[in-house]
C-alpha cells in the first residue's frame, strides 16, 4: 500500500513537471484555447486527486504498519501525521487570509466612473458608465454584470460593440472568473513552483483567447478584429493588435451559422 502511495505521489509530481512543457510547446494552444483550457484543468484535477490520494494512502499505510508492529517508532510516525495535518491547516489558513489580495483583473481607471444606465438583458445586466477610457469588463456573480464605458460606445460601431459584449458575455457564461481564481489560489499554495506559475499564466491567456473565439463565432470574427484594431489604435495596446491578427489566421463559420445570444441581440441597439 505504501508503494502505491509513493507511485501516486510520483505520478502527481511527474504531471506537474511534464505538463507545462508539453502543453506550452508549439502554437496549438494559441489557436485552440478552449481545448487548451480543458486539457490544463483536466490535468490539474487529475494531479490534485492523485496527490491527495497518495498522501491519504501514505498516512493510512503508515498507521496500519504502526498497529501491525507495535514496537516501531510510533511516536515519530504519529508526530509526522500531526505535522502534516498542521502544515495543511496552515496552508489553508494562508489561502483564506491572503486570497483577497490576489492580483485582481479589475482595471484601476473606473474608480471615479459614473454609471448613467442599467439595462437588464437575458443572462446579465448591462451597466453603461461615463469614462474617457475605452473599457469594458464583466463582473461574475449571482447577478452578473457587464460594464461598458461611454468612450468605448463612441469609438465602436454597433456590430463591433456587440462583439465586445459577446467577449465579456463568454467570460460570464464559461465561468472564466472562477477558472482564474482557481489558478491564482493554486499559485498561492505552491509559490515558486514552475508548474503553478505556468498554470496561472496559461489560464490568464487562454480565457482571453477563448472569449475572443466565442465572440467571433457568435458575432463575426471581422467585427471583433475591427473592434480590437480600433481600440488598439486608441490605447496603443499592442496585445489587442496581436489578438486581431490571431483572429485573421483562423477559419470561422459562415455568417449564416452565427448564433448571437439572446441577451446580446438588444445590444446592437446601443448608441
Amino acid at each position, binding site marked *: 500500500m505504501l508503494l502505491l502511495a509513493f507511485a501516486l505521489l510520483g505520478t502527481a509530481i511527474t504531471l506537474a513537471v511534464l505538463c507545462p512543457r508539453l502543453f506550452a510547446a508549439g502554437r496549438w494552444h494559441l489557436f485552440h484555447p478552449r481545448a487548451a483550457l480543458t486539457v490544463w484543468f483536466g490535468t490539474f484535477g487529475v494531479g490534485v486527486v492523485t496527490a491527495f490520494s497518495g498522501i491519504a494512502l501514505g498516512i493510512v499505510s503508515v498507521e496500519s504498519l504502526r498497529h501491525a508492529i507495535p514496537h516501531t517508532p510510533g511516536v515519530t510516525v504519529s508526530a509526522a501525521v500531526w505535522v502534516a495535518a498542521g502544515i495543511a491547516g496552515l496552508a489553508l489558513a494562508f489561502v483564506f487570509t491572503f486570497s483577497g489580495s490576489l492580483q485582481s483583473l479589475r482595471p484601476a481607471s473606473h474608480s471615479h466612473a459614473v454609471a448613467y444606465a442599467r439595462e437588464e438583458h437575458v443572462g446579465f445586466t448591462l451597466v453603461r458608465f461615463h469614462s474617457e477610457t475605452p*473599457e469594458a469588463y464583466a*463582473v461574475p456573480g449571482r447577478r452578473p454584470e457587464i460594464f461598458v464605458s461611454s468612450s468605448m460606445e463612441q469609438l465602436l460601431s454597433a456590430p463591433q460593440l456587440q462583439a465586445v459584449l459577446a467577449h465579456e458575455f463568454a467570460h460570464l457564461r464559461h465561468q472564466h*472568473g472562477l477558472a482564474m481564481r482557481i489558478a491564482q489560489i493554486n499559485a498561492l499554495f505552491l509559490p515558486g513552483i514552475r508548474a503553478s506559475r505556468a498554470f496561472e499564466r496559461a489560464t490568464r491567456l487562454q480565457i482571453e483567447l477563448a472569449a475572443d473565439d466565442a465572440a467571433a463565432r457568435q458575432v463575426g470574427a471581422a467585427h471583433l478584429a475591427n473592434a480590437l484594431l480600433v481600440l488598439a489604435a486608441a490605447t496603443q495596446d499592442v496585445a489587442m493588435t*496581436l489578438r486581431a491578427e490571431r483572429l485573421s489566421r483562423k477559419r470561422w463559420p459562415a455568417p449564416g451559422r452565427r448564433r448571437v445570444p439572446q441577451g446580446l441581440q438588444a445590444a446592437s441597439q446601443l448608441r
Partner: protein
Amino acid sequence: MAGVRKREWGGLEDEVMQRLHEQEHAVSARELQRTFSEPVPAYTTVMTALTRLESKGRVERIGDSPRKISFRPLRSSEEEASETMTSALEQATDRRAALLAFAGNLADDDVAALMDAFGEATAHE
C-alpha cells in the same frame, strides 16, 4: 410547503425604486401597489420594502398621519444608477470575484507569446 419565490432577493426593492422614479409626485404604498402588474405583491410586502428602502436612505417618508403617508425617492434614477454601480463594484471586491476586462488583462509574457506567434504580420503593417 415552502412557497415559490417570485423574484430574486432584492428584486422587489429594485422594482419599487423603479416605479417610484416613474411617479411625478410622492405616492402612498397603496398607489404604488396598483402600478404593479402580475404578480402583484401584497400591500404589507410593498410597505416592508418601502420601510427597508427608507432605512437604507433611498426613500423619504412624507406625512405624519398613517392614512396619508406617502413616499418619494431621495435620489434621481441617474444618481441611483451611479450608486448601484459603486455598490456593485464594492460587492465584487467583497466577494473576491475577478473582473474580466476586455483589454489589459494580459501580462507581458502573454503578450510576448502572442508576439512570437503573430508579431511578424503586425510588424510589416
